[in-house]
């Protein structure tokens, strides 16, 4: 249980500034997700918190203690890696108990803790297997088990689900969220997948080019994105964003409207031609070609009768437009 405070954290690799001064407070017990495109510095920031990278500048406090120079094992953190990073030559039991054996915990105590943890994660039957004999989801659970036994103040997750297939990913999302609810520990989670960010986070930190674009709850970011970048990044399909003539007409530099807030009908503001329709079942994504606007994406009901080549009128839902 700990608060994580970053003050003016900077990181440079040679002349390249990867993190350009980050101030952030992650409250005790919060599930905080760092999200952003590749190369935005989210993993580097997580590694700085973990102590695997040293910050070029700034300070880091975990649970009120300054740990900027501390070894990873002294920070009270633990980390789940994208590649799971299980020790291939050790069994599941030994993998989970590795940290405890390093800390010279008595053997019977290690056995007790490992068994209890395995029970929590439904790994009891796999304890004597080697990692290569496990499926992706099971490996991920072992990696989480290895983290739990150390009883950390802060859990760090570095894109832990990106190697799993879609159905397993959504299952593990729920498991990690439930784990957070049960342990009530501070968790910091890095992902490039905005669906993971939206579904799991108490707080989302959107990073871009080494700086924070916006911090807020998932719905805050969805309803009131502070910048066009956040507007385009949060939400799927992404928001339609326009600059130039249309934006000027709307009295702004960038004009945005989410696909779910575009109404299609027999009349409206923009006339467009249907380029492509993606049927998702419950709803459909319609790609339109609008003269003077370019492409426009709209989300509509799944039983839409629109066909490629057909003409349709589109209008923004009042009060749902974004102007920057």
């Amino acid at each position, binding site marked *: 249980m700990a608060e994580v405070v970053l003050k003016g954290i900077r990181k440079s690799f040679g002349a390249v500034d990867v993190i350009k001064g980050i101030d952030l407070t992650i409250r005790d017990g919060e599930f905080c997700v760092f999200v952003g495109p590749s190369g935005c510095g989210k993993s580097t920031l997580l590694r700085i918190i*973990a102590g695997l990278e040293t910050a070029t500048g700034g300070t880091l406090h975990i649970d009120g203690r300054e740990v900027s120079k501390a*070894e*990873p094992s002294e920070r009270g953190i633990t*980390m789940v*890696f994208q590649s799971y990073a299980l020790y291939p030559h050790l069994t599941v039991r030994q993998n989970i108990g590795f940290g405890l054996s390093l800390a010279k915990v008595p053997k019977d105590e290690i056995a007790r803790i490992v068994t209890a943890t395995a029970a929590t994660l439904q790994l009891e039957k796999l304890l004597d297997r080697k990692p290569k004999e496990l499926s992706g989801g099971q490996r991920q659970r072992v990696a989480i088990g290895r983290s739990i036994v150390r009883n950390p103040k802060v859990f760090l997750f570095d894109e832990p689900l990106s190697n799993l297939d879609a159905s397993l990913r959504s299952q593990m999302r729920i498991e990690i969220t439930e784990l957070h609810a049960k342990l009530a520990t501070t968790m910091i989670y890095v992902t490039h997948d905005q669906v993971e960010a939206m579904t799991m986070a108490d707080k989302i930190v959107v990073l871009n080019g080494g700086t924070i674009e916006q911090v807020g709850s998932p719905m805050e970011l969805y309803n009131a994105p502070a910048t066009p970048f956040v507007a385009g990044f949060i939400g799927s399909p992404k928001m339609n964003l326009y600059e130039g003539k249309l934006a000027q007409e709307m009295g702004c530099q960038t004009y945005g409207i989410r696909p779910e807030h575009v109404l299609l009908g027999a009349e409206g503001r923009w006339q467009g031609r249907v380029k492509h329709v993606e049927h998702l079942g419950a709803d459909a994504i319609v790609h339109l070609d609008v003269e003077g606007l370019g492409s426009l994406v709209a989300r509509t009901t799944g039983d839409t009768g629109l066909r490629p080549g057909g003409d349709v009128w589109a209008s923004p839902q009042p009060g749902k437009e974004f102007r920057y």
Partner: protein
Amino acid sequence: MTRRQYWTGIIATVLALVIFVVPFVFIAFTAVKDKAQASHLDFTWPLQFLFWQNLVDVVSTRNYMLLLAYFNSSIITVGAVAMLILFGAMVGYVLQRRQSRWNKVIFGCVLAGLIIPPAVVPTIWVMQGLGLFKTIWGMVFIQVAYGLAFSVLLYRSFIATIPRDLDEAARIDGARPLQIFLRVILPLLKPVTVTLIVVQSIAIFNDFTNPLYYLPGKENVTVQLTLFNFQSQFSTQFNLLFMNILLVTIPPLIVFIFFNRQIVAGMTAGAVKG
């Protein structure tokens, strides 16, 4: 399999037999012959099978010198191979994992160890200066010095295939650098270690020239040097010489047969990613 492949296979097998098995059979035959028949040095069936008698003669020659030689050679082999593995893996690990501007210089030195031929006389000067000349440990260090470059190269390229995440996970688990190396990395180097054990132990056990130069003295004899017991300028006892060869060949052969599979795995490990 086509007819052509079939015949190519047969020819290859026969050739391999001629090249590898015939000399061995020749050694075995000559080793059990009597002195007179052996002196003809031809590939004939032994008239008498004097296996046990020749064996006892060879072992008991010059006050059981062969047994002392086995003892010395074993110490040199075990000592040198253990050091080659430990230091080779450590140097390979640090070279691969810790990037610094010295890496290129160190790597250059390692390559120089492979490329530059050893010079005997200066080495003897150095060993005399260190008080290691004519000592078993001096010989161990010589073997380590000659084999370390190869061992470092092999370990370094294999360690490159071990994900760095493992080191970091161990670090987060609270392991110190030496613990990361000993408990996480070293066990994963098994394929290369087995290869090195086999290749180096055979090379060191069978080494003739280095003990000849650096380890003179009757009490320092190694197995290969016992071959001198049965040949001199004017006469050679071929039956005993070949029995000696047979006895000297057996230990490396056993090592090779046991570890054969792993050697290939270790030699190709790290060659391709995946």
